[in-house]
């Protein structure tokens, strides 16, 4: 059996400021195999982006306290020195963002931005980097690639910008791609193009992808496995089919039910009542308890431990039995 590419062990991230102490990520653990695509689902503020950034140690060092273990490709990220960190970033692991407009340096031509990274990691000249950038633009199917290399970010349309961003992320053939809501800002017709492109590239290059989204449909489109986050914790993980068909955690179930997709119009939508908790003041016990339809007194006391009712499936809910016969 191959070794896992990513191992995250009890990761917590605290943001400490003068006024408050935010626990943005609260004991997250997961592992990923090479070539796997994992979707992180969750509401706004549930800690998805922070987890991704923690993987690359991109959080502001002064204000954030990271605990727990992160190993990527067998290396302990927490223990890396600056040099090792720089070699990992962009080469082993790379990242794409929701807003490609703000993710590019606005005053440098996109081709040069890509060339700079290629030149840095591959130790080649800037010119060679530009040639590589041209190949990459073809790879991500940017029409008139040559001309687009010389464009500034603001001169590209949203879809092209996101493709350029993907080209940048793939420039050094990373083993792991972190994609933080890369399609949320795109139009429907463009979103599907980008999703399909990403999927194809992932298969061709055999890389692992962690894909953050809060759209179940997008997850269904791309994921092998899904991790659902709520208030800084992963409340459920499992293979995408199983998770979408038979959600274990009440939050996952609620999310599925409240997603509008061809429900009958004459009835109200099912909703999860209330709002996500304030991360500064998490309730003790299960964070979802205040909104949970299945809540009981025990839920308010302790944080539910992960249970695995079936192979590959884990949920953190007291109402989920340890093993469900149907899946056994």
């Amino acid at each position: 059996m191959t070794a896992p590419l990513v191992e995250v062990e009890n990761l917590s991230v605290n943001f400490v400021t003068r006024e408050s102490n935010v626990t943005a990520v609260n004991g997250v653990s997961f592992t990923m195999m090479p070539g796997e695509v994992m979707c992180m689902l969750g509401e706004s503020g549930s800690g998805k982006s922070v987890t991704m950034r923690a993987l690359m140690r991109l959080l502001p060092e002064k204000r954030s306290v990271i605990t727990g273990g992160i190993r990527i490709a067998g290396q302990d990220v927490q223990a890396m020195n600056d040099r090792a960190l720089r070699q990992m970033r962009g080469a082993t692991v790379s990242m794409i963002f929701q807003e490609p407009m703000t993710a590019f340096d606005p005053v440098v031509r996109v081709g040069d931005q890509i060339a700079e990274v290629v030149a840095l990691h591959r130790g080649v000249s800037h010119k060679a980097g530009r040639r590589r950038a041209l190949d990459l633009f073809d790879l991500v199917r940017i029409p008139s690639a040559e001309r687009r290399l010389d464009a500034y970010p603001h001169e590209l349309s949203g879809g092209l910008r996101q493709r350029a961003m993907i080209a940048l992320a793939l420039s050094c053939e990373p083993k792991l791609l972190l994609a933080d809501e890369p399609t949320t800002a795109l139009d429907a017709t463009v979103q599907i193009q980008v999703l399909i492109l990403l999927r194809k590239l992932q298969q061709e290059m055999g890389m692992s992808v962690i894909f953050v989204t809060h759209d179940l449909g997008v997850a269904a489109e791309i994921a092998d496995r899904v991790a659902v986050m709520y208030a800084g914790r992963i409340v459920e993980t499992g293979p995408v089919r199983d998770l979408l068909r038979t959600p274990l955690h009440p939050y996952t179930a609620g999310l599925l039910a409240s997603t509008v997709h061809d429900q009958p119009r004459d009835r109200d939508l099912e909703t999860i009542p209330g709002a996500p908790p304030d991360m500064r003041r998490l309730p003790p016990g299960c964070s979802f308890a205040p909104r949970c339809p299945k809540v009981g007194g025990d839920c308010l006391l302790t944080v539910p431990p992960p249970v695995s009712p079936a192979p590959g499936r884990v949920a953190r809910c007291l109402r989920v039995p340890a093993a469900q016969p149907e899946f056994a």
Partner: protein
Amino acid sequence: MSTAISDTTPPALAELAGPAQRGYWGTVGYRLRYDPVTLFFITILVLVILAAIFSPWLAPNDPYQESIIRRLKPPGYRGHILGTDELGRDMLSRLLYGGRITLTMGILPVLVATLIGGGLGVIAGFAGGFVNALIMRIMDVFYAFPSVLLAVAISGAMGGGAVNGMIALTLVFIPPLCRVAETATTQVRNLDFVDAARATGAPVRLVLWHHVLGNVLGPVLIYASSLISVGIILASGLSFLGLGVKPPEPDWGLMLNALRQAIYVSPLAAAMPGIAILITSVSMNMASDGLRAAMDVRS
């Protein structure tokens, strides 16, 4: 009769869902409380202003009472805590009284310019189009003059004197304030809540008053407060050139000018008005910086 389409959150939990009610200025105050540096300078500033206001009660001597035999005495000489100036007048009393004039010279033009320039800027920003172009192009013309040049030229043209000096400074400050107000208004004007307010069909006057002004005031006031120290320095520069306050008023700039001749005899006396200007101006700048940071609720 009203249907309960309610959020099923129980009240106790709903309260958990958001921070305590503090209000905008409450938040600003809260943030200021935790900024000792800013607090320190605000305290100094308040002390300077109070000293200026209460100078008639605080000053140990008559600031105009000269005596040639006592001229340029060192601090501590016969009850003159900070010594005497070139005509034997009590330094401390003159500095205290001088605060009144100097601060007025620095603050009043900024206030008036804030009203005029800020008002014009808000009108230009809110009206847009031709009105905007008209106002802003006129401002551009005045903006084309470096501020010291404009101040000196105007008060040179009108002849010196405190009032003319203040008018000159006001004219100097109107264009930049107008710009800041215009930029802020244009920004606010393009926010949805102004459109939402317009969509109620409310008259423009009310929209301006309730929705635009409040949001423009912050940046304009911060900018204005940073201009005050410029005003103080410019005003004393004018006095220094003989274009500002007239003697025997104990204006700090004028004192600086007069005592400059005495710098070889009593360097300390010559330095004191400069130090007073420096302290006030530093405090003003630091306080306004701190306020700016505190009012930037995003961060």
